[in-house]
């Protein structure tokens, strides 16, 4: 078996992080198969068990090597890459994975539509065959990074005459192509983390298709299954995150304390601590190779806690009636701690909507974890075009 430690040592010997250009180092790391060791050789990996990646990361971090800023390119790493690996042609894999991993090419995700949110399979963006190409027209929404992305993963409707899950096809889409228009989507916080993307006769070569025609739903499932679980590698310290901010606000503002707010804060403190502990437990399960379904409980609890905490914070802060800035900013990522209480209050409202609403999550928990029966379905056997919209 390949010894990844030796590989890392060889990489570091040839490319001293202290003197090598960041991008050169990342490219070399990819070529050495140390990007994601469980990927095949030649595609940034070594065909090794996934668990060995941790060794690589630890050794490289210890050597002061640059990383590929994974938070910035999460969609590429977490969603696009596994899908391309599973369904792309060899040519596509060769062309796309290296710049994806190094961050040279940013990816975005063209899934949700104004009429297809929780019900992704209802989407209506049409792709029609045109010789060796497809012509794609439709509107996508909630696309983060669309304005900086070079590529997108895209799900379309290719056959409206069959039930909705059966008539979808999956592509990679070049965001620099004519017919792709990106508009910022302003949120209630004032900023625009996301975009609307309008596609008008965008020409996509059939070679950029992932999976079979009509098999887009299954391909999309691969993407979504790989959506990064919101569990970092390390456990949060006590009072990490929003509970710490709010606790400090409490400590700093004795004037605004009331017995009622006190008990509410303590309740939330208890829940935040229990959520932190549940996270530790989940990570220990994962490390043990026996992950439970508790991740979905954590997302549900996280959203509720963030909302209740930020609501309380506005009551106990000195200037709850003020806001820091309504100007339309375009942040790279959400920062709950860098801004003021009003921002946290408003932004946290999105926590129970983005990445699957809390309502959908409760359905999933009820059916998949608790095994409760599903509701009667009225949309299973109806052609997409005949569904009420």
């Amino acid at each position, binding site marked *: 078996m390949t010894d990844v430690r030796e590989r890392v040592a060889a990489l570091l010997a040839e490319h001293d992080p202290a003197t090598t250009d960041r991008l050169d180092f990342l490219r070399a790391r990819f070529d050495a198969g140390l990007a994601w060791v469980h990927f095949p050789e030649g595609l940034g990996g070594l065909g090794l068990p996934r668990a060995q990646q941790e060794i690589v990361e630890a050794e490289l971090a210890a050597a002061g090597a640059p990383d590929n800023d994974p938070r910035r390119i999460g969609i590429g790493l977490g969603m696009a890459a596994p899908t391309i690996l599973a369904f792309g042609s060899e040519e596509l894999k060769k062309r796309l994975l290296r710049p994806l991993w190094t961050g040279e090419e940013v990816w975005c995700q063209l899934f949700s539509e104004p009429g297809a949110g929780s019900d992704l399979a*209802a989407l209506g963006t049409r792709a029609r065959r045109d010789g060796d190409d497809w012509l794609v027209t439709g509107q996508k929404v909630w696309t983060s990074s669309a304005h900086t992305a070079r590529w997108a993963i895209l799900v379309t409707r290719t056959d409206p005459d069959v039930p909705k899950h059966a008539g979808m096809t999956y592509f990679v889409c070049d965001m620099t192509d004519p017919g792709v228009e990106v508009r910022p989507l*302003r949120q209630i916080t004032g900023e625009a983390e996301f975009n609307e993307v309008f596609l008008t006769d965008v020409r996509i070569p059939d070679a950029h298709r992932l999976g079979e025609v009509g098999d887009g739903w299954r391909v999309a499932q691969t993407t979504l299954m790989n959506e990064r679980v919101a569990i970092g590698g390390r456990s949060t310290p006590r009072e990490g995150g929003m509970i710490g901010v709010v606790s400090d606000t409490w400590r700093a503002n004795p004037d605004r304390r009331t017995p009622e707010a006190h008990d509410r804060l303590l309740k939330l403190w208890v829940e935040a601590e229990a959520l932190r502990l549940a996270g530790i437990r989940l990570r220990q399960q994962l490390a043990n190779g026996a992950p439970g379904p508790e991740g979905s409980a954590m997302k549900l609890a996280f959203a509720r806690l963030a909302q209740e905490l930020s*609501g309380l914070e*506005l009551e106990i802060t*000195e200037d709850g*009636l*003020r806001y820091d800035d309504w100007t339309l900013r375009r942040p790279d990522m959400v920062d709950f701690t860098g801004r003021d209480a009003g921002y946290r209050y408003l932004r946290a409202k999105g926590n129970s909507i983005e990445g699957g609403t809390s309502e959908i999550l409760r359905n999933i928990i009820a059916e998949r974890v608790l095994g409760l029966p599903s509701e009667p*379905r009225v949309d299973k056997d109806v052609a997409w075009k005949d569904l*009420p919209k």
Partner: protein
Amino acid sequence: MSDPNLLTSDVEEALRAGVRDLLADKADADAVLGRVESSSPLDMDLWRTLVDLGATSLPIPESLGGQGAGWREAAVVAEEVGRAVAPVPFLGSTLATAALLHLSDDTDAQEALKSMASGESVVVLAIPLSGPVDGPLARTVRSVADAGVATRFLVPADGGLHLVEAASVEPVVSLDLTRPVWDVTFADSGVRLTGSGESAVDSALLAGSAMLAAEQVGIAEWCLTTTVAYLKQRYQFGRPVGSFQALKHRLADLWQSIVLARAAALNAADALATSSADTRVAVAVAQSLCSTVAVRAAEECVQLHGGIGMTWEHPAHLYLKRAKADELALGTPGKHRATLASLVNLPG
């Protein structure tokens, strides 16, 4: 104690219809959204139309140019202002009106009420919208609602209430886009009105809280109605989203809360209108309940609209911001409950 009158009269409903029509016409969602980021966040044209309609001077006696109606009628207007999140100086003006009515033996107070009734001036009570009222004369009063359009201020200072022009009125980036606050600085102490400033402010806070409760009922109702309408026409999984039972149950619970909140708000307005001995209890009950219900309604409205509710272009956020700011305004629900505890002998 005989039962309060918790029905609205035909006259009150006619007033409601008039105000609602006007606001639907002049303060629809697009108009409000367009205005809030402008340099004139309050719509003074709309305000003047409300003045002409008599909707801003209902509790002011006819002898002073007002409508000589009362706080029940004013509550109807407050509710409609809430339903439209109309960007008009209703609350600041209401607080000043109540304070001035309390001191209405004073001729300067009478003159001020007259000029408010006619629309000639906008007088605003210079207190921080959230947080305690300062005892001594504060040179700068932070976060005063509606101050940006005030021509004069009532400033509590040295146990009295002073009618003053501000030295400066500084805009503040406000959480509530439709009722922004300003920092106001005073240089001189103006005219001191005869009578107790403290009891005038107390009176203003009582009336203001009752009107706020009515406003919160309006906010909550808009949020419920708008959400129900959206969920009827939004389809997912081949069904109207409003046919999903979990959402139906949440909306039924919300409706139930609004039924209680409405009764409490009507009771507070009626108590105020009839100078009931029960007014303080009625206001504490209404304000603590309606605050909570309005915030919940607005939060549910955003959540149940899904992504669209998170966008700037949908008006839901205007209601969320107003509801949350209203919760902080004139005392949080927890503070009103603490007041109640001493009123009804439930010591902590």
